[in-house]
């Protein structure tokens, strides 16, 4: 029951209402019984249409009654003596759905019945349907059933897409907070102006135009959220190509880390591992035990000695071959790393537009320093334009947002963590160290991108803000031998993954009970636990 306010009434009123309801109920039960009996007796006639129609007008969600009507209509349209009468039959069915939709504009059944009539009859009037959508969207501009129905009608009568695109413009200028219209616009843009070169969601010149439109909407009322979501889409959504980021070979284990999840088929078909120029065969196992993973383990029987030549060849989607050479880091430990970069790439005109909008945001921020959306947008712009250059300011802003928009403090904390890790990763990838330690002063709250650190032998996660929720992420540390989790916020070790650790430091996790630790030790006998 949605939106039905409880009203206090007198006993007298209650009794009167109950009597009224019992009367209604009697009629309802009688009608349902009659309908079901007629159905059983295969009496598919006008009377059945009248009976079901009457019940549906007050309760349009009784799905079986619509099914019965479809059965009856199918028969009646076949046995009718003239086209005109068939047409009439379907017209009155459309009137019924229209009536029901007035009672309940969100009735799935009524909408579906309308679709059924239009696709069943031989003379559908799609123009009329499109006009009906216009009318209904004036009554409620956010009814997603109406929007869905509009898309259905459009798919049937195929008006020029540009007309639909213009319709979204009109709707948005009517009311900038019409999220449904922004949504539809995103679909239209992808159809009309796709970025065929890949990379951005839409063509550059339109990209800039859309950004401007967002700006005029957002500046009209910064608290109106619709435009901001649309903007985040425009700024993000870079199609990341699949990339091998790191490759580690040790006598015990060989793993390959990717920038995104790939399937076993992809790994099998697109990866060759060479040792001294011979292809190595073996079985690839996903680290998370699922079909798609961003860290794959290779099981092979090759002996790994010192001073051998190891490389991998990755055939990319465009048939380009990417070669990653391994370097020996320690006795019998080889690591290959790619050049990695988390900076979003935009065309020159878009960067220019972003920079102009950033200035506008900064000006607005002077007037309204406490506006969450303005500050968040400023921050996103800074990150998009040059994440490295503006990193400090970005993190400071996110810290302010934690207070300004405290409901979502957890989101901002994780975003700080993610962008800090993205900041640190490229430089870690230039070093030859097998050690990880966070270089930022803000404490880590989660472990994103940790497949990138799968090559590390020692991982120092001490004195962070990690909770037990983050433990399953540690599965990425496939080559870690010493892990320091001291000084965190762990409460239980139940979700701790199976790792070949030698030493695990769990000191100063004040909510971790000694029973928990004992249980853990029992389960992982080979690990030296410091507590």
């Amino acid at each position, binding site marked *: *029951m*949605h*939106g*039905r*306010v*409880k009203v206090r009434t007198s006993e007298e009123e209650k009794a009167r209402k*109950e009597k009224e*309801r*019992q009367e*209604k*109920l009697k009629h*309802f039960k009688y009608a*349902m019984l009659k309908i079901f009996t007629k159905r059983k007796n295969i009496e598919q006639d006008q009377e059945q249409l009248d009976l079901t129609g009457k019940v549906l007008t007050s*309760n349009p969600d*009784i*799905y*079986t009654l619509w099914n019965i009507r479809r059965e009856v209509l199918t028969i009646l349209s076949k046995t009718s003596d003239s086209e005109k009468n068939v047409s009439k039959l379907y017209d009155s069915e459309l009137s019924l759905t229209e009536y029901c939709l007035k009672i309940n504009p969100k009735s*799935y059944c009524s909408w*579906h019945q309308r679709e*059924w009539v239009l696709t069943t009859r031989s003379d559908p009037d799609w123009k009329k349907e499109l006009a009906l959508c216009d009318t209904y969207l004036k009554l409620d501009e*956010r009814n*997603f059933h109406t*929007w*869905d129905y509009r*898309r259905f009608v459009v798919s049937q009568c195929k008006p020029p897409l540009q007309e639909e695109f213009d319709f979204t413009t009109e709707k948005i200028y009517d*009311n*900038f*907070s019409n*999220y*449904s219209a922004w*949504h*539809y616009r*995103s*679909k239209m843009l992808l159809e009309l102006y796709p970025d065929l070169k890949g990379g951005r*969601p839409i063509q550059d010149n339109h990209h800039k135009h859309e950004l401007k439109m967002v700006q005029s909407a957002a500046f009209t*009322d910064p*608290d*109106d*959220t*619709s435009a901001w*979501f649309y903007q*985040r*889409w425009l700024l993000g*959504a870079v199609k990341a190509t699949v990339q091998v980021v790191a490759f580690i070979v040790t006598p015990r284990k060989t793993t390959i880390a990717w920038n*995104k*999840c790939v399937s076993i088929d992809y790994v099998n078909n697109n990866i060759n591992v060479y040792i001294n120029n011979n292809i190595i065969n073996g079985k690839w196992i996903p680290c998370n035990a*699922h*079909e*798609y993973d*961003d860290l794959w383990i290779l099981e092979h029987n090759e002996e790994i000695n010192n001073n051998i030549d190891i490389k991998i060849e990755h055939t990319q989607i465009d048939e380009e071959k990417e070669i990653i050479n391994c370097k020996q880091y320690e006795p019998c430990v080889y690591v290959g790393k790619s050049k990695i970069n988390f900076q979003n790439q935009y065309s020159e005109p878009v960067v220019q537009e972003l920079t102009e909008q950033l200035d506008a945001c900064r000006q607005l921020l002077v007037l309204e320093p406490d506006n969450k959306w303005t500050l968040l947008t400023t921050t996103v712009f800074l990150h998009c334009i040059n994440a490295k250059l503006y990193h400090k300011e970005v993190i400071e802003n996110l810290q302010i947002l934690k207070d300004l928009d*405290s*409901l*979502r*403090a*957890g*989101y901002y904390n994780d975003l700080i963590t993610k962008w800090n890790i993205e900041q640190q990763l490229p430089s870690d990838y230039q070093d030859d160290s097998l050690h990880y330690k966070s270089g930022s002063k803000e404490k880590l709250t989660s472990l994103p991108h940790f497949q990138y650190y799968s090559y590390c032998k020692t991982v120092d996660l001490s004195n962070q803000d990690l*909770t037990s*929720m983050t433990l*399953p*992420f540690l599965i990425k540390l496939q080559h870690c031998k010493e892990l320091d989790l001291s000084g965190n916020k762990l409460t239980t070790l139940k979700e701790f993954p199976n790792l070949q650790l030698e030493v695990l430091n769990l000191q100063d996790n004040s909510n971790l009970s000694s029973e928990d630790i004992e249980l853990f030790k029992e389960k992982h006998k080979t690990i030296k636990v410091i507590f």
Partner: protein
Amino acid sequence: MSFKTKDVVLSEDRPKTLLLQKHSDFLASYGVNKDDYEYCMTEYLRMSGIYWSLTAMELMDQSSRMPKEEIIAFISSCQDSESGGLSASNGHDPHMLYTLSAVQVLAMYDRLDAIDTEGVVRFVTSMQQEDGSFIGDKWGEVDTRFSFCAVMCLSLLHRLDAINVSKAVDFVLSCMNFDGGFGSKPGSESHAGLIYCCVGTLSICKRMDALKCDELAWWLCERQLPSGGLNGRPEKLPDLCYSWWVMSSLSMLNRIHWVDKKNLEQYILACQDAETGGFSDRPGDITDPFHTLFGLAGLSLLGNSSIKRVNPTYCMPQETIDRLKLEPQILYV
């Protein structure tokens, strides 16, 4: 243009503690009077009604107050021998929604033997279309809700192999939007309820990797309003059932901490009716079994220890999911 956030204000005299006994009484008495107006008028969704009430009772550890044998006999009587599907009630037609509810109830009772499960598999399988989508019944309505019904139903029967899972996944992914969310069919606007269905489908099919998880989770956490309640789409009023649709999705995405749990808990508790028992969509509205389940399940996700643990994918007690040895995927990216 004037603009105000659509929200409600919680009054000072709202319920602030969990009224478990009241809710159990509310659900136990629901439907005892078979001539009750509301009860009769909702016959067309009876099977789901039973699922909402029983699951809520299970979560409160009060399911013994439900007429078990009567329910099982009723469910058996609702199976259509020809198609294999189940209807909402006697005389009604088989449909995916009610087939799922029936299987969920029987799974909780550990009484799947009470129906012809092969018939159910036949019915669900026959609903899959060439493009991987599912229709609700033979009349052809396509909706991602039915994709979720299909994979949940079959996984509870350990027969996911009966359909083309990869096509089912591809269809759901074709419904993904610019904001990372999902709607009811390709092109449809994102909606928290349908996001739950689509993320749930991917969780059961173990393809959570295909989500744009940060974009989606951000959109989901932005559903939280100053009252603490959650809405289902931008610029809409809060509604208690979204504390389930949004929070279960965030749980599967392992990002439940992106909303303010304390404020949400306050909102959920405020939706209780201290007189009648049960939860409603917003404080002060009429309560019903649907919102009662999602209020309790939401509190369970928030870690309330007086309620049993609920599984975020199945919306059933975790103990049932463990007994069936099901392991829906949680995202660790």
